[in-house]
């Protein structure tokens, strides 16, 4: 803790310059100790995350199908060419992207509303928060099954109510809409939770001052709360975007990828676990990894450059 703080203040004292801060002997020793203390955790992290990533990159460069063990060979980038030139992959990629964007936008709007309610509730605050969090506590697969039955004709009350003469889960747009609904229902509370933490960052004095100056409720929300909350909002959006991009359970249960509703994770699963094709499957896994890294990179860039009041340099 102290190491970080001192290092942070040392950097901050010379903004915009790359020169290393001069440290005293005592501080150097403290920093060394800090590094030593971090080392075991860092090594474990590398072992459990680094190794599988490197191994899957290695696998993605091979023709390796578990059913034809004799035909294993190094094929360079052939698998990447096969996947990237395949229509199924791009359909799934488009579906995943679409689902991610739509569901995160809806979740953000609803989550913000929920967060404001939870933040401002005077009576039974604990109860309101608990109730709002219930969907997030339910296992996704279980929730997905209840949605599945609800939208299946005859057994499902929702299908019977809204689409008495058809089966929504067998059509393209209705299936996508139901998948988005299931996602939104499930993860809005998580979004709200993160946003509520952001709301706690907004000082009451600031809001009072704004209303003294004659700002309306909407102006206070957009001009005061949102800017102050921005770091928290971006973190919430980043988390949810990365999460939504890996969507699997809901699709697996609701449509099993029929009618082009497959996501990239579903397709990876189909090739890797069902098809036992380690080469192609790993290639897909690596591509997902790269996409996730790009998303994270974009978010962090947006962070660094556009966050207002980011006069604290690189400190996020």
């Amino acid at each position, binding site marked *: 803790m102290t190491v970080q703080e001192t290092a942070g203040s040392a950097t901050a004292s010379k903004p915009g310059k790359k020169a290393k801060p001069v440290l005293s002997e005592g501080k150097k020793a403290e920093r060394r100790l800090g590094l030593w203390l971090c080392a075991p955790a860092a090594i474990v992290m590398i072992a459990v995350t680094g190794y599988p990533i490197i191994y899957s990159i290695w696998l993605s460069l091979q023709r390796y199908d578990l059913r034809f063990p004799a035909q294993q060979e190094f094929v360079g980038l052939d698998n990447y060419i*096969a996947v990237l030139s*395949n229509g*199924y992959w791009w359909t799934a990629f488009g579906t995943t992207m679409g689902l991610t964007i739509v569901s995160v936008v809806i979740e953000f709007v609803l989550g913000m509303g929920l967060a404001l309610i939870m933040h401002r509730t005077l009576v039974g605050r604990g109860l309101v928060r608990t109730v709002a969090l219930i969907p997030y506590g339910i296992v996704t697969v279980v929730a997905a099954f209840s949605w599945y039955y609800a939208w299946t004709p005859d057994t499902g009350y929702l299908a019977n109510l809204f689409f008495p003469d058809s*089966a929504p889960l*067998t059509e393209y747009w209705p299936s996508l809409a139901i998948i988005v609904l299931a996602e939104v229902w499930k993860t809005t509370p998580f979004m709200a939770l993160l946003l509520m933490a952001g709301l706690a960052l907004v000082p009451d004095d600031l809001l009072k001052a704004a209303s003294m100056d004659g700002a309306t409720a909407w102006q206070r929300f957009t001009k005061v709360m949102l800017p102050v909350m921005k770091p928290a909002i971006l973190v919430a959006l980043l988390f949810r975007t990365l999460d939504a991009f890996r969507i699997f359970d809901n699709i697996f249960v609701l449509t099993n990828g029929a009618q082009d509703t497959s996501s990239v994770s579903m397709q990876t699963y189909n090739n890797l676990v*069902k098809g036992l094709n380690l080469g*192609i499957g790993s290639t897909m896994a690596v591509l997902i990894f790269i996409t996730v890294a790009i998303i994270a990179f974009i978010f962090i860039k947006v962070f660094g450059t556009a966050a207002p009041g980011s006069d604290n340099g690189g400190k996020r």
Partner: protein
Amino acid sequence: MGKRMSASRRGRSPGRTGSLLGATALTVGLLAGCGSDAGLKINVYYAPEDNFQSVVDDCTKASGGRYEVVYNKLPRPADGQREQMVRRLAAGDDSLDVLGLDVTWVSEFAEAGWIDEWTGEAKAEATEGVLPGPLETATWNGKLYAATKNTNVQLLWYDDRLTPTPPKTWDEMIDQAKALKAQGKPANVVFTGAQYEGLVVIYNTLVESAGGKILSDDGKSVVMDAGAIKALEMLKKVTTAGITDPSLTNSKEDEVRQSFQRGNAAFELNWPFVYASYAKEKKDELKHFKWTTYPQLEAGKPAKTTIGGYNLAVSSTSKHKAEATEVALCLRSAKNQKFSALKDGVPPTIESLYTDTLPLDATAPQSDDNPSMETKYPMRETILDALKDAAVRPLTPAYQNASTVLSKVLSPPSEIDPQKTAEKLKEQLADALQSKGVIP
């Protein structure tokens, strides 16, 4: 509406009874296990079957205390069963002894070296009196890799109050359904139209009935001949005639069964398990629930129906192969196949059982609790006829890929464009056979 609700409520209770029975069987199994926990255990991995535990216990007893047979229940969906076994086998797990394989998996498991070839006396015993169709599914490259446990074949089910004379061909069936629809009666043709193996089964039957081929006999190249295209045309015709359920593309075996039982359909293409369910849930109407052979694609040319079912193989990583072989042979012995047919409704692979007239307990008189093939399996002759000239799904180690591609390209069947779809299949199946390219 009220009628429908009560039907579905009635529909649920047997399931509950079934799981209760399963739980009881499990407890009994565990208790039985306590006695001989020091002894050798032979692990059987097999799909859920309500009364299979009794068969397993019987084989434990038959060993005379040398080993205990343990029934490890695999997940219900076929994909889940395969995934669990494959994951373990690929990792060299030596705790698997006897594997229950769907008929389409034998070539894959054999090619990958996960199961052992059957030779000598065991082979002779495993093949004795077995129908040729099921036997073919247990063979790969001319060698026997499994013992057939049960087979399965789809029939055409109908209600004789709606259609006193069942259709002989697909065209007749479509016409009759349209006529019924015009009269405002239940008219749908229901079958497994979801994007999964069930759709491939329907398609394979149509292809074989048209005398066509999807893959070559050695499973190494794609054929997709005129027959295969004719089958595509029929699949399109039946799904665009306005006589299929809106949820066709989400229907698997059980949804199909329920849809017919609720009285929404006139014709059901499904496996014989539907008879037992109907007998249980709509006993008073059972006498109107009739069956006949699968409709023909071309008039006068009997349909070749795709067979399903399970085979039992011995894992190549097993440490007790001799015992495992013995267990596999016991589990599928004529006596136990008859038991499973009567108790769980799975058609036997041994031909003589279809003409067997003795009740389950041969020493006691025939009754409701002591059924025979005659009382519990009235459709046995139709099944036997279908089995004698049955179709086998393409045999290839890459079947899983081929099937995934087939079900994807064929779904939804109403959007098939015969020539174009055939081209697409040709191209993608070729990749799938090489385990190259992406499966959807």
